[in-house]
């Protein structure tokens, strides 16, 4: 051992040479050309352009001074790519997270440290964890009856006063408000500005919802345009979900793209798949109300007015015609009656005249029978006293009286010399 411990005659490397040898050996086994996957729990993480993360065995105790630590790093160029992908999946590297990293070993001689250059990160485990936490949150909300709580809030039939939780000038904000403005309806938008992504977003969104809930708006709209899962992660936040669920005002959500469904969407009164669709939904509600309560009644009113006027016009015209015909018929009837009377009078008058004529002729005939001339011609005579009185009885004259006797062709004087009564 002593001989061996003596450096005389032995190959002696300088430190740099040793590191070169070591580096060569490491690279030959674990270098850039031989990358491998390593599983580890994030113990520390630090980012400054590059990512620096200390990985330890999952579940190992922080108090264990001997637990192995892998000083991993990801250079900025690669990290920016990976970071975007992680954000898109809604995950981030935080202490406690267990990840699989792919890379290779390197040796940093100035500090005598073996490091691990990360070229890829598999976060499927993290995604599964996010999904699990999300499912657990939904289960809790369901158990508490909060998934349906806001859906039971009565919605104004004309939701024109709109509380808006959004970040102005974003695409989602413009899409949503553009729908309302272009509708021509008098939407009154009460905006509470919030950030809509990142760790600071949930408390701001909660405060905005709470403020609008007492602002006497008809509906609260939570709006956020499309983004990665990470961008939209704040809408899976339990605080946001609970604030929506307990709000007294109906909360509508228009978050992300088609297919994105956040926990906020699940607890909301109404969920639209995009901000644009949410704007369309509100406009549709107002349009429907207007259709039912304004346009159709106006149409019915116009039709009924026209029908009423037509009916009244027809009524008056019909009454006018009826009166004309009734009066004409009545006059004609009276005329016919008069004609009938006249004819009856004429006929009856003829009968009367004829009868009178007959009666006159009869009378005349009767009178003729009593004509004195006729009687005188038959041999009868008429005696009269001197005074002209017709002698009807022997008592009318005395013996010796002179009487005039008229015969058919004249008269003569005669003296009463004898009177003889006719025996009865």
């Amino acid at each position, binding site marked *: 051992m002593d001989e061996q411990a003596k450096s005389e005659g032995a190959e002696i490397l300088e430190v740099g040479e040793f590191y070169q040898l070591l580096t060569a050996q490491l690279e030959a086994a674990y270098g850039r050309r031989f990358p491998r996957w390593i599983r580890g729990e994030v113990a520390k993480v630090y980012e400054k352009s590059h990512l620096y993360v200390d990985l330890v065995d999952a579940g190992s105790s922080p108090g264990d001074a001997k637990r192995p630590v892998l000083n991993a790093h990801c250079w900025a160029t690669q990290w920016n790519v990976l970071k975007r992908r992680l954000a898109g999946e809604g995950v981030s590297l935080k202490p406690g997270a267990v990840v699989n990293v792919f890379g290779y070993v390197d040796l940093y001689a100035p500090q005598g440290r073996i490091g691990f250059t990360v070229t890829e990160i598999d976060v499927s485990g993290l995604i599964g964890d996010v999904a699990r936490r999300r499912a657990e949150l939904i289960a809790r909300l369901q158990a508490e009856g909060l998934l349906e709580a806001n859906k039971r809030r009565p919605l104004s039939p004309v939701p024109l006063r709109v509380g808006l939780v959004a970040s102005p000038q974003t695409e989602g904000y413009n899409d949503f408000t553009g729908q309302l403005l272009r509708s021509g309806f008098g939407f009154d938008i009460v905006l509470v500005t919030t950030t809509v992504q990142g760790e600071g977003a949930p408390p701001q969104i909660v405060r905005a919802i709470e403020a609008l809930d007492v602002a006497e708006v008809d509906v609260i709209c939570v709006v956020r345009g499309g983004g990665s899962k990470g961008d939209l992660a704040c809408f899976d936040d339990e605080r946001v979900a609970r604030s929506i669920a307990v709000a007294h005002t109906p909360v509508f959500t228009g978050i992300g793209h088609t297919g994105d469904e956040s926990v906020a969407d699940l607890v909301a009164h109404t969920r639209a798949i995009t901000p644009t669709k949410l704007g369309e939904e509100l406009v549709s509600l107002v349009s429907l109300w207007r259709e039912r309560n*304004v*346009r159709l009644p*106006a*149409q019915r*009113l*116009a039709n009924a*007015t*026209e029908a009423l*006027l037509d009916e*009244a*016009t027809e*009524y*008056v015209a019909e*009454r*006018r015609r*009826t*009166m004309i015909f*009734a*009066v004409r*018929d*009545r*006059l004609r009837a*009276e005329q016919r009656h008069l004609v009938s009377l006249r004819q009856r009078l004429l006929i009856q008058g003829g009968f009367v005249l004829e009868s009178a004529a007959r009666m006159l002729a009869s009378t005349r005939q009767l009178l003729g029978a009593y004509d004195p001339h006729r009687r005188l011609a038959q041999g009868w005579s008429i005696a009269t006293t001197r005074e002209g009185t017709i002698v009807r009885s022997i008592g009318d004259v005395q013996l010796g009286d002179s009487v005039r006797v008229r015969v058919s062709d004249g008269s003569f004087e005669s003296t009463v010399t004898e009177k003889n009564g006719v025996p009865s």
Partner: protein
Amino acid sequence: MSNVGDWNEAAAELNAIVASFDEGEVSVDDLFVKLERATAIIEALESRLDATRAKVEELAPRLARVAEDQ
């Protein structure tokens, strides 16, 4: 123009006059009086109709704008 009351009153009176004609209850002496009254009522009703229609036609375009606006 004779006072003929409101539309319903006037229509009722007119209907009664027409009914009296239909039932032959109108004497020749009454005929002219009733015809004159009926004519006055009809003219009054037509006058009201014309006035109402004029007002309706003034409002109709406004109503139509509401009714036809989709």
